[in-house]
C-alpha cells in the first residue's frame, strides 16, 4: 500500500499559514535526526527546545498525525515538516523498522479502533424502545415546527410576489429576517435559499432571471413539502434534505454500503459565513457512480483530511436516501490503492447534457452535478473561459481569471480531462487529469 502524497496535498492539511510556513522550514532532511517509513506510517525525530528530540509520526491513510511537542496546532509544524520531507525526498525516510515509540503508537491506535466498534454494541431491548420513543417525540415536535415555518414562508413569499419582487429585494433586511425565522423553525436550508434569493440581485445583467429562478425553486420546494405524503420516499428524502433536516449518521452507518475502488476525482472548499464546507467527489470505478463526502469545519477547526485528488481508495460508502443518491458517509476505509487513475468517468459534452437532463427530471432542485469531461480543450475567448470539444461544442466555465490562467498553463492548448461541478449554466472546474499528472485547481 503506497500513498502518492503531493506537496499540494500537504499544503491543504495545514491548520493555518503560519504553521505551514514553520513546517516548510523544517522540511529539510538535515534537520531530522532519524527518518523512517513502513506500512503507511512515516516517522522522524527532530531537535526541539528541550533536551529530548520531538518524536513525530504520521499514519498516511486517514491521515493522522502524532507528535510529542507541546503545540496545540494540529497537525503541528513537525508533522507538516515530516510530510513535506516525504513528498520532496521520500528516499530520505530510510529506516524501515518501527522504533519502540512508533510501535507503541500504532498499537494504541489499533486498540482504540477496536474499542470504538465494541462501544456500538446494542443495549437491552427496553432501553432501546425508550430511546426510540423519545426519538419519535423529538421528531414530531420538530416536524410541527417545520410545518409552521413552511406555511409562514409560503404566505410571505406570495405577498412579495403580489407586490413585486423588484421592490421587495431592495429591502434585504426583510429577507434576512425571514431567513432568521426559518432557522428558528429548524429549516436552515430554507434560510440559505432565502439568502441566495436576496443576493441574486447582485448577480449581474441577468439578475432578474436568476432571482425568478431562485424564487420559483423555493416555491416548488414549499409546495412539495405541503403534499410530501403523496410523493415517493426518494423525493420525500430529497425534500427533507433541501429543507435542512439532518439525518442520523450513526443509524445510517449501520446500513450495508457500497464497496468499490473510489477515485478521488475532485475537491472544493467553500466558505459560508464562519463555516468551511469541504466537498470531496468520488467516483466508484466498478459501480460507475458518484459519491460526495461533505465535511464541515467552524472557525479554525481542522478540516477532515481526505486523500489527495487523483488517488484511488478502496472503501465502503453508505449513501443518504434521495432520488439522486450521491451524498455518502465513509463507513470502512480499506486504504489507498497504487493504481493509475481510472478515467472511465470522463464523458463527452453531449452525454453530460443528457445525463443532467434525466437527473433533473427526477430531482428538480438539483444544482450541483458532478461532471467529468473527457478530451476537452480549455480556451480563453473574448475574455470568457470555455471548454471546447473536438466537435466545437462548448461549455462555459465559472472560474476566476487567476485559476483560468492556471488551467491554461497546465493544458497548453491540448485536450485534457476536466472534473468540475455543473450547475446547469456553468462548470466550476476542480481538477485536471492530463496524461501525466493530476492537479487540483
Amino acid at each position, binding site marked *: 500500500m503506497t500513498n502518492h502524497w503531493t506537496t499540494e496535498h500537504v499544503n491543504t492539511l495545514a491548520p493555518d499559514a503560519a504553521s505551514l510556513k514553520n513546517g516548510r522550514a523544517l522540511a529539510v532532511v538535515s534537520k531530522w535526526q532519524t527518518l523512517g517509513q513502513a506500512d503507511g506510517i512515516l516517522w522522524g525525530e527532530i531537535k526541539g527546545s528541550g533536551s529530548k528530540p520531538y518524536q513525530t509520526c504520521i499514519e498516511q491513510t486517514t491521515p493522522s498525525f502524532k507528535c510529542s511537542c507541546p503545540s496545540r496546532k494540529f497537525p503541528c509544524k513537525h508533522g507538516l515538516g515530516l510530510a513535506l520531507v516525504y513528498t520532496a525526498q521520500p528516499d530520505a525516510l530510510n529506516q524501515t523498522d518501527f522504533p519502540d515509540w512508533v510501535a507503541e503508537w500504532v498499537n494504541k491506535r489499533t486498540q482504540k479502533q477496536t474499542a470504538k466498534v465494541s462501544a456500538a454494541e446494542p443495549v437491552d431491548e427496553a432501553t432501546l424502545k425508550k430511546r426510540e420513543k423519545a426519538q419519535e417525540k423529538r421528531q414530531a415536535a420538530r416536524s410541527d415546527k417545520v410545518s409552521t415555518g413552511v406555511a409562514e414562508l409560503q404566505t410571505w413569499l406570495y405577498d412579495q410576489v403580489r407586490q413585486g419582487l423588484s421592490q421587495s429585494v431592495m429591502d434585504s433586511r426583510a429577507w434576512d429576517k425571514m431567513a432568521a425565522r426559518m432557522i428558528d423553525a429548524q429549516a436552515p436550508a430554507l434560510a440559505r435559499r432565502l439568502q441566495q434569493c436576496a443576493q441574486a440581485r447582485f448577480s449581474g445583467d441577468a439578475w432578474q432571471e436568476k432571482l425568478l429562478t431562485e424564487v420559483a425553486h423555493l416555491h416548488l420546494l414549499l409546495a412539495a413539502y405541503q403534499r410530501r405524503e403523496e410523493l415517493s420516499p426518494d423525493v420525500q428524502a430529497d425534500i427533507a434534505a433541501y429543507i435542512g433536516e439532518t439525518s442520523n449518521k450513526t443509524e445510517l452507518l449501520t446500513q450495508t454500503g457500497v464497496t468499490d475502488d473510489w477515485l478521488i476525482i475532485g475537491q472544493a472548499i467553500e466558505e459560508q459565513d464562519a463555516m468551511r464546507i469541504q466537498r470531496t467527489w468520488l467516483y466508484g470505478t466498478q459501480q460507475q457512480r458518484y459519491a460526495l463526502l461533505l465535511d464541515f469545519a467552524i472557525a479554525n477547526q481542522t478540516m477532515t483530511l481526505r486523500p489527495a485528488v487523483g488517488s484511488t481508495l478502496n472503501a465502503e460508502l453508505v449513501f443518504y436516501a434521495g432520488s439522486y443518491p450521491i451524498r455518502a458517509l465513509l463507513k470502512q476505509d480499506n486504504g489507498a490503492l497504487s493504481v493509475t487513475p481510472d478515467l472511465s468517468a470522463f464523458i463527452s459534452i453531449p452525454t453530460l447534457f443528457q445525463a443532467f437532463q434525466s437527473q433533473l427530471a427526477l430531482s428538480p432542485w438539483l444544482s450541483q452535478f458532478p461532471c467529468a469531461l473527457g478530451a476537452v480543450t480549455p480556451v480563453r475567448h473574448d475574455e470568457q473561459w470555455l471548454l*471546447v470539444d473536438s466537435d466545437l461544442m462548448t461549455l462555459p466555465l465559472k472560474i476566476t481569471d487567476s485559476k483560468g490562467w492556471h488551467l491554461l498553463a497546465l493544458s497548453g492548448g491540448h485536450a485534457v480531462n476536466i472534473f468540475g461541478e455543473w450547475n446547469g449554466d456553468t462548470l466550476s472546474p476542480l481538477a485536471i487529469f492530463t496524461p501525466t499528472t493530476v492537479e487540483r485547481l
Partner: protein
Amino acid sequence: MQIWQDLIKYSLIGSERQNAPLNADGDLQAYISQLYPNNTVPTGEAREQALLSAAALAAQYRLAGQQAATFNGTLPVADDAEPLPLLSPLCISHLQRLLNDNELKSILPEWLALAAIVKRRVPFASIPQLLELATQNRSIRPAITALIDKRGQWLAAQHPDWQKLLVQTDAILDDVSIWEDGSPAQREEYLRQYREQDAAKARELLQAVWKQEPAATRQSLLAVFSVNLSSEDEAFLNTCLEDRSKGVRQLAATLLGQLPDSAFSQRQKHRLNTWLRFEKGGLLKKAKLIVDLPETCDKTWLADGIEEKPPQGKGAKAWWLEQALSVVPPAYWSAHWHTSPDDILTMLKKHEWRDALLMAWRQALQNYPDSDWAETFLTHFNNSEQPLWQLLNAAHAERLAAQLLTSTETSKLSNVLPILNHVQHAWSVDFSTCVINALQRHTQQKLTANEAYAYYYLSDFARHLAPECTDLLSSCLQKPHEYEQITRVIDKMFYMLSFRRDMTNALTNP
C-alpha cells in the same frame, strides 16, 4: 420564450397587475393551462401560486432543454514543443516557498538567476504567478523567460499584459504601436531595447519625433542613450546642448563628457587645464594643485553648459569651476596628473577651493561611476554615504567594509554595522566571516535598548552573506539573547541564510 419574459415582468412589478393568464408555446402549454382553469387568472393567493408554479415549470423546461453552444472563434495552436526537463522536486518546493513566504520574497531574484542557468523548467502550474511577478520587476524577466520555457511563452502570448514582457526583443520591437502610443515608461523601455540592438536606428527613431515631445519626455528618452553610447551620437548630442530645456542640456553635456574624444570633452578639458595646474611633489616639496580661475565669464562657455549666474550663496568662480569639472570623468585627472585619487584628495585638505572641488568631483562621480575614486572619497570623508558605496565594485567594497569592521572598537560597532547594508552584492566567504565575527563581538557586549532595536535593520545581511557561512552564523551567535528583538533577528537571519544554502545546494547538485 415569451412566457419567460412575461413571468419576469409580472414577478418583478407584482402579480396584482397581472390580468390575463399566461400562455406558452408547444408542450409547455398543456401544463400551464392547468394552472389557469377556464383560462382566467385565479384570485387571492391562488394567483401568486399559479404564477410561481408556472415560473418553476418554465425554468425547469428551459434548463432541461439546454444545448451546448458551438464555438465560433479560432482555437489557439496547442503548445507541442518538447519541454525542458522539470526542476527537481526539492527545487520546486523551494520555489513554492519563495512565492508564498513574504520573508523569503526578497531572495526570489537570486533563486531565479541561479535556476535559469540549469536548463530546466518550472512546473506548468507556477507559470502564471511568475509571469505576474515579471510585470512588476524588469530585472527578473530574462530568468523567468528561461524558466517558464516554451509553455510559458505560449501562455504569455495569449495574455495582453504578459505578451510584451518576455525577453524576445524582436517581438517587442516589431510592435511599433508601443513606441507610437505607449506610456512614457513603455516607450523608454522600447527605446532602451532598440539601443541595445541597433543604437543608430534608435537614435534616428528619437530624432524623428524629437521636436514634438515635451521637455520631460525628451529628457527621459535621451537618458537611454547611455546604452551603447558612441562617437556616432556626438552630432545629435551637440544639437541637444542648445535645447530649450535645461534638464536636456545638462544631460547632453553629461553624455558628451562620457565620450573622451568628443569636441565637447576636449573643450572642457582644455579649459580646465588652464584653470587647474598640478605641481608634482618631490623629496622635499609637497605636491600642489594650483587653481587659477578667470575673473570674468566668457560667453562661449554657455554653449558648453556653463551658466554665468551662480545660485544664491555661492561664489561665481566656484560655480563655474563646479559646472565644468562635473562633466569630466574624475579618472581623467588621476591619469592626466599621474597621481592617485588618494594623493589628490590629501592635497585638498587645507586647499582654499576645497569645497568647490569636492562638490564638483562628487557630482562627476555620480555622472561617471569610478570605484577607485569612490573608495577614496569614503575613506577620506563620511563613510556612510550610500550613493558612493553603490559606485564601488565588489572587491573594493569588501576591502573597505572589512577595514572598517576590524579597525572599529567593539563598543562603536553600532555605528558601523548599518553601513554594511550599502554593500549590496553577494558577499564572499572571507568577508561574510568577517561580518559574522563582528556581529559576535558586538552581541556579546552590553548593549543599550536603542542599539538592540537597531538590529532590526541588520536582518537583511542574510540576503548577502555567503550561504557557506550558515553554520558559522548559528555557532557564533548565541541564542537566546538578553534582548528579545536580537534573538528574533538572529532567528530570521538564520532562517533566510539556511534557506539560501539549501536552495543553492539543490540547484547546483541536481
